[in-house]
């Protein structure tokens, strides 16, 4: 149903709307990525067979590095935004909220940076 609108004031681009969409669309990508990762690492391979050699072997393939970069980027951003939404539920003081949002932004960039460095840098030294 198309309604004429006298007031052309659109809700427009708005951070919460974008964040909401982000959670849904990133999830679409994340479900195959995360489940694939869990299936492979936790179930098929298992933590007892994972070691530096395994990681080195895995990251020898560019395909797996891209997979892991995507996983890192999407999963962590999805997770940090989720944490932000949860935190804002319980923290109401505007200054505290700003603090949390900045804190999480820095946290997100830092951890993502560390993770990205590792994936790009790879295993720096294999055991003898």
């Amino acid at each position: 149903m198309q309604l004429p609108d006298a007031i052309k004031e659109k809700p427009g681009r708005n951070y919460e709307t974008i964040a909401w969409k982000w959670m849904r669309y990133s999830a679409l990508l994340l479900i195959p990525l995360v489940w694939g990762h869990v299936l492979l690492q936790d179930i098929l391979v298992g933590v007892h067979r994972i070691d530096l050699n395994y990681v080195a072997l895995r990251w020898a393939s560019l395909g797996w590095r891209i997979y892991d970069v995507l996983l890192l980027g999407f999963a962590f951003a999805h997770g940090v935004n989720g944490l932000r939404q949860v935190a804002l539920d319980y923290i109401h003081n505007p200054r505290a909220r700003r603090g949390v949002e900045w804190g999480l932004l820095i946290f997100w960039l830092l951890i993502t940076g560390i993770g990205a460095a590792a994936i790009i840098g790879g295993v720096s030294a294999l055991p003898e």
Partner: protein
Amino acid sequence: MAHLKTPLQGYLGYRGREGQTAFLLHRISGIGTALFLTIHILDTALVYFYPGLYEEAIGIYRTTLFGIAELFLVFLVIYHGINGLRIAGFDLFVPQRWNIPTARGSFRLTLILTLLLWLPAAAVMLYNLLHHNFGLFGG
């Protein structure tokens, strides 16, 4: 955190139905996964920054306690995914189908699917755990 009193009272004391359970599980699984993910990124990053420590970190994951926690983690990850799909599906594609029967039913379906996916995974993981940590099954 005086602000937590009311929501906690509600989460624990309000007799919500499937939807409230779904929300609480989604939130718990989300927070849990996000926190684990942070640790997981950091420990994996050791391979580049402090490769010597990596094996020690992995060692912790191999303990029985972590093995059991891992079982739960996988459950939560599967649940979070399916429940997220459920919610997004209704919100984005069939909002007019959001009603009490579909909400209750779709949550039950979500739990069943989660269990169906988790049980075989749990069996394999439990096998690995028993095999490596307790020497069962010819370990």
